């Protein structure tokens, strides 16, 4: 069963378009925030700031919300934390999975080799769609060499010691900067397989598009806010204030700070640029990303590149790399937006084990149903017993 068909079955979504999504590779993010700005420009979202330093490294917009649909987090870490991250990432791979990494690698097919992030309970990790399942599995690739990319490589690899992941004398990877790092990661709506917001929306304002994404219909939303509590990632919010236009409109009088914003009072979140997608265009954030840290395309392709990338990083000794949202068995059934992280999700402000609030509904209904049936049976039995009596 392909992930897409599983997705269609799970979500009762039936459409000829393949599911689309993002792959955000935080290992090559340079924190330029072009995604944040491009998103606001395209969607005409209000600013989200009191114009004061927030006190969080270079991050001054704080997090995702009604006005900020892409958000870049900045995390400064010292050596201890880096080692922990490297260890925890390695542990994800070591959970009974074929080893990813230098010499001792086995040649077994990496059917379930997984670095899916801790969102994936270990025993569920072997499902399809897990990391490292790509044909160019890390286990068969050379441990070192000049060329680790999957495409666009015009050079022959090898030569004198030029590989970015050099190997030590014992073959173990030598990392060049062990003592400090500055993580940057662009967060966005996850467009979940089991979308809490969509499940709980009482008006049907939230819907699943033909591309498998989840979008708010502004003319239907009544601003009840139920979805806000329904999202396990804290993504969706109601828009209540903000300023849309630049203060100085050139050639016009300055605008007052209290310009009414569009969609005031209703729930807002990333649409994965539904309007652009319909025109076969790339979402604004991915279009603006200078280093291709944000990739956009069919979700299956995204998943495949994500798996290849995580394998490549492990090969280079960067065992801290793991995927987030790639596991269809997680609490939201996997997400449309996949992330490659370099530490535990909590470090980036992401829930380690997101769970859609409606996930328990079938079981609850089942138990309630059993209870009702039991009561009925008891009642019948009572009548029967009474008759005898």
């Amino acid at each position, binding site marked *: 069963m392909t992930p897409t068909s599983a997705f269609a079955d799970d979500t009762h979504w039936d459409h000829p378009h393949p599911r689309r999504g993002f792959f955000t590779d935080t290992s090559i993010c340079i924190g*330029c925030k072009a995604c944040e700005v491009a998103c606001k420009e395209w969607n005409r979202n209000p600013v989200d700031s009191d114009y004061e330093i927030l006190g969080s490294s270079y991050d001054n917009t704080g997090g995702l919300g009604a006005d900020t649909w892409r958000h870049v987090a900045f995390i400064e870490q010292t050596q201890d934390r880096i080692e922990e991250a490297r260890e925890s990432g390695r542990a994800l791979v070591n959970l009974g999975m074929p080893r990813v990494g230098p010499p001792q690698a086995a040649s077994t097919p990496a059917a379930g080799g997984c670095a899916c992030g801790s969102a994936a309970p270990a025993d569920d990790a072997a499902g399809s769609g897990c990391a490292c399942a790509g044909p160019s599995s890390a286990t068969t690739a050379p441990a070192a060499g000049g060329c680790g990319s999957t495409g666009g490589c015009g050079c022959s690899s090898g030569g004198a010691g030029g*590989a970015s992941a050099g190997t030590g004398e014992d073959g173990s990877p030598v990392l*060049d900067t062990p003592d*400090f790092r500055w993580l940057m990661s662009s967060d966005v709506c996850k467009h979940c397989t089991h979308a809490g917001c969509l499940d709980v929306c009482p008006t049907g304002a939230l819907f699943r598009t033909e591309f498998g994404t989840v979008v708010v219909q502004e003319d239907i939303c009544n601003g009840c806010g139920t979805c806000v509590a329904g999202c396990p990632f804290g993504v969706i919010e109601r828009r209540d204030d903000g300023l849309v236009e*630049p203060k*100085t409109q050139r*050639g016009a009088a300055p605008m007052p700070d209290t310009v009414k914003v569009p969609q005031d009072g209703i729930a807002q979140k990333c649409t994965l640029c539904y309007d652009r997608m319909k025109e076969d265009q790339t979402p604004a954030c991915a279009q603006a990303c*200078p280093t291709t840290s944000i990739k956009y395309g069919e979700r299956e392709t995204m998943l495949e590149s994500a798996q290849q990338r995580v394998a490549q990083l492990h090969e280079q000794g960067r065992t801290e790399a793991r995927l987030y949202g790639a596991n269809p068995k997680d609490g939201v059934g996997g997400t449309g937006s996949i992330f490659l992280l370099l530490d535990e999700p909590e470090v980036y402000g992401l829930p380690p084990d997101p769970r859609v609030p409606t996930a328990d509904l079938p079981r609850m209904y089942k138990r309630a149903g059993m209870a009702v049936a039991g009561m009925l049976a008891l009642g019948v039995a009572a009548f029967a017993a009474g008759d005898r009596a």
Partner: protein
Amino acid sequence: MANADCIVIQGSNMAECHPVGFQWVAEAKARGAKVIHVDPRFTRTSAVADKHLPIRAGSDIVLLGALINYVLSNDLWFHEYVVSYTNAATLISEDFEDAEDLNGLFSGYDPESGSYHLGSWAYQTEDDGSGHEGAEEHAKGHEQRAKAGGQQFGSGGAPVGTGTPKRDKTLQHPRTVFQILKRHFSRYTPEMVRETCGISEEDFAYLARSVTENSGRDRTTCFAYAVGWTQHTLGAQFIRTASILQLLLGNMGRPGGGIMALRGHATIQGSTDIPTLFNLLPGYLPMPSVTAQTLDDYVDGIRTTNQKGYWANARSYAVNLLKSWWGDAATAENDYAYDYIPRINGAHGTYQTLMAMLKDQVEGYFLLGQNPAVGSANGRLQRMGMSHLKWLVVRDLNMIESATWWKDGPEIASGELRTEDIDTEVFFMPAATHVEKSGSFTQTQRLVQWRHQAVTPPGDAQSELEFFHELGKRIRARVADSDDPRDRPLQDLTWDYPLTEEGEPDAEAVLAEINGRFLTGPDADKPLSSYTQMKDDGSTAGGCWIYTGIYADGVNRAAMRVPGQVQDEIASEWAWAWPANRRILYNRASADPQGKPWSERKKLVWWDEENHTWTGKDNPDFPLDREPGSHPDPQQGGPDALAGDDPFIMQADGKGWLFSPKGMLDGPLPTHYEPQESPVDNPLYTQQQSPTRVMFPREDNLSAPSGEAPGTDVYPFMFTTYRLTEHHTAGGMSRWLPYLSELQPEMFCEISPELAELKGLEPYGWATIVSPRSAIEVKVLVTDRMTPLTVGGKTIHQIGLPYHWGAGSDAVVSGDGANDLLGITLDPNVQIQNFKTGSCDIRPGRRPRGAQRDELVREYQQRANLTIMTGMERITDPERELNDDPLRARDSGDVAGRSTAYTAGTATTDQGEDK
């Protein structure tokens, strides 16, 4: 860059300041390249690099010099490349004496003018062996400095005088460049790096190993720099040091090699090619000086007819420019209207103009996309200077601080200036943005890219083209009936651009004029296709010789947009690169002396024996039919004189210069001097700072003492200024935009946890930073990304300061300007200001308001016993006793201007007296 195997980014924060160009670094990294970032701070570039090496700002020559020493002493240089393609084998005059032998000064130093006579740096020639022959042509350094002479070699090297240079290909002769180089850099050791730059020996070894292992036949290393190298008192020499290293490693003219100069704005490269600089004409033709009375004088001063290569034809380039500007009025009889061009008689750079303003010698000033009140060194002096003008035109997108200082600047707040006392009339002219006009951008790689107008500008906003076309029209109408000869240049100017439907001059017509055309003959009026077609007899005209070919066959080649995916990796059909759509300069060096590629992996151009021509992926940068082994008579001059192994076709001898016999004004070899303000003594010489730096000793431009001098402890910390991704330079394009302002809303400093503890600074609280020029307040970012360094036995704390904010009332976000802290000291080669190092103190809390701010600055000055002479000595070796009068900075500095030093309490009186 994508082809590099190792990329060293130094003097640049590329990921933050050039995020779009950084895609090529990301690409190289994806292909397996190693990326090393050398910078005082751990930045967003460091975050994605393999390794970050923290360095003390201003010590780069020591690090790069040690790499040179490492390469030479471990025999890691690229022998065949160096012997054949560089001037390593060339013999230098017996009169040359190295700074190593003269304790910090090269031979030829003239204490009178604070500059060098370049004669003793010359090549020995076959003809007389002395090297003296060229001496006459070796203009005196101070004249060159006054013209920012070093900048004039943007398209071709300096002439080196007549005669064939002597060479010793065994490199054994003690006067060979190679041996001089070896001796010169022998003290640049890993220990020196540790003691001077604060970089450990292990980290140095890592860098040295990475660079050398990734250089050679099969592999190439690339350097990238930006203003972190240029904006120092010896910035040009930083780049020279890297050039020497790259030549020794054979990394020039090859794919994935070179030194990438990252330019700061969309077309800052274009604005030096077709310049907005006082000392240059289009195509790097020097601005004539008053001493060049005729066209022949001028041309003879910029080239020699018997030098090798294409610069020998400089006369053609000059005549074509004159024909392009003055058309039929430029004739052989009137020297092609050479007299219409203004002459310079000294330095007229932005800072000299500022000094003239302060002396009331400048009436009017145009500011075009420039915000000196925030973006130039010593912001207070900039604003005071503008208050002396009669009129000021500010053309910008927004009402920037340079347009509003007269009502809301810091000097209004302090009471030093009063709006009602300022006579300057300020005109604000709204400007069109880049999407509101068509034209071209020339980027870092010399790629000229066309952009089309997307929307029409709002309101009265105009493009530069429309504004200046209209201004020219009006001025020409004013002088149309004049018979004053001085109006002839205006009357005769070709100013007949066709208009578009909207009534704007057609930008493509300007491009065609720049490209040039035949004026006579069978092809009359047809566009030129190459600068080699340019004649010096008036039969062709072209506005900028290096751009010729951009409009070949009447096609706007800058507008070519064939996607990269459907082209080979050279992508020659995406836009157009000057010269001749060549993507890698001097690419003859990508093949060995026999014309074969150095390796299959790094193949670019090669000699095709069968067809007897140079060919390859890129457009060969060499006479196509010149056989690799040919040795034409060098004395015939010009391109014909280039030997088959002279890849550096714009250099007078066809070789890459490890040693510059001419062209650099502060030394033929780079050598380390401390910045104008430094916490340590120069570890190499008693000569503390560059003896040729350009200084402005004034009461309002004081310097802190350096090293062990008394008073250094008053300003114990170093600061360095820089940009952030979220803002654009002085903020004119970003601080008015809420979407960008919210991303970095407030002025801040970056300091280490150690410094925060030392000074009791709270994270994200306020601090005040005091320099000898000003005091500013900033929010405090305490971060492990800043590291204290141990240098010369001292702990050095560096404070990082973005410079985007300025004091005003119109922007979405404003704040104190970092550049107010800086003094004005310039590099002698190009007159660029030092922005990257300064001394200061930092203390908790906000700065005092009003006049008390100046009191605080003065209190510090007094405590450090600062005088106008502090740090202004040219020669700091007491044994030399040459320091009779440091204020004798005739051609550079300026002391006669009215002082605008802080005189708190009496500020208004001072103003009154001046009026």
